[in-house]
């Protein structure tokens, strides 16, 4: 399992893309997707709603369990990935690409996210 270098990571296993024009993309890591198993239902935050760093903003349902989705950053949701709502297995098959979850316009910097190497070490520990 390799975690893309250009992303940053939370200890709740979300990733955050580089910020472009104030907007970043959020998803869950391959590590988290593997741990959950086949994901069958995702509930994403609504466009226009505000998400807060480390707070719950949706849920991910797998065969065996349901898990809360946390936001790694604070801001306004500007897009939710309808493709993963229609086909949640995208989160398993392409967690860092087509399985992204939502885009957020940051209203505050989140400082304590991990680099790829730090996250890899965190999940190995």
């Amino acid at each position, binding site marked *: 399992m390799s975690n893309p270098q250009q992303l940053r990571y939370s200890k709740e296993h979300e990733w955050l893309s580089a910020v472009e024009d104030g907007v970043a993309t959020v998803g869950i890591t391959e590590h988290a997707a593997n741990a959950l*198993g*086949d994901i*069958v239902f995702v509930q994403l935050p609504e466009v226009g709603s505000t998400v807060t760093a480390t707070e719950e903003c949706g849920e991910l349902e797998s*065969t*065996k369990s*349901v898990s809360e989705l946390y936001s790694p950053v604070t801001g306004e949701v500007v897009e939710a990935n309808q493709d993963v709502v229609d086909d949640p297995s995208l989160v398993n098959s392409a967690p860092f690409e087509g399985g992204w979850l939502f885009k957020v316009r940051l209203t505050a910097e989140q400082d304590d996210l991990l680099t790829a190497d730090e996250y890899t070490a965190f999940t190995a520990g």
Partner: protein
Amino acid sequence: MSTTPRLTALDALHRSLGATMTDFAGWDMPLRYGSERDEHNAVRTRAGLFDLSHMGEITVTGPQAVDLLDYALVGNISTVGNGRARYTMICQEDGGILDDLIVYRLGETEYMVVANASNAQVVLDALVARAGGFDAEVRDDRDAYALLAVQGPESPGILKQLTDADLDGLKYYAGLPGTVAGVPALIARTGYTGEDGFELFLKPEHAEGVWKALTEAGAGVGLIPCGLSCRDTLRLEAGMPLYGHELTTSLTPFDAGLGRVVKFEKPGDFVGRKALEAAAERAETAPPRKLVGLIAEGRRVPRAGMQVVFGGEAVGEITSGAPSPTLGVPIAMAYVDAAHAAPGTEGVGVDIRGTHEPYKVVALPFYKRQK
């Protein structure tokens, strides 16, 4: 109490296959090897290979072995023919279900009781306690066996490559001694998936060789290793009860809709008879909650313990729920008040974290294989 998990004879093999392991009743067991949905579908359409070595085997032998079993269990074991198997239950004095079991008759006076892993000690203790006064021996054989299961429509063809045993003559719920891949095995046509298939009781030292031989024999028809996760969705689709979910000590077989396993007509007393007679009468006059199937209209998955609601009021409780790979929607088993238990009942919901999601009541099972 030790917290070190018990390992099956196949533990190293599971890890080499990249299995995600999980603690199950004190055993470290494979949850899944890859996608549990793929494993589920393999069993429905091709074949799957399971390690079930956590199940609890207890041998009962001796001149009065069958008398002991008729006294200790609710079934009529004296009607089980040599080489046949029977689904039955062991109950408490008050009628509460201690476990559901399969009893194999291995010889004139030899029986093997297979208990759920989580209850194996309880069943063993109960059988030992109930054996007083019978000329019979109860033997803990949990360490004597590894248990592999090959399940799915391709399983007879796969197993035929490895055994001379007469599989065509082996009926559902029958078992015979034979050899598989050159080693002795009890070959039983039983399983917990709703598909045709076999369970192979082997010496633990032979488990790895037989696993590899089955893997090789099944490679051409798509057999894959399968974990406990898909075993649960397979049995749920097949409407099979799971101890701790549909069956508990606070329910009698009649409350679980399985009163047919209680055989009052057998001679002699058996543990729980009085309480079960009362439970049977209660079930006649005042039907208890019924075990039903629920099919989701939406996509949220009901889980054990969630409430079934009707018009805002609780009318039942989910015992098992999961997304059904075969049906493509979430399904559940639930105990529901008789008034809302008829198949086709509409307006029933499940309270999923505060939202009442619409569900339809259906008869069990959700899935029945075409024979």
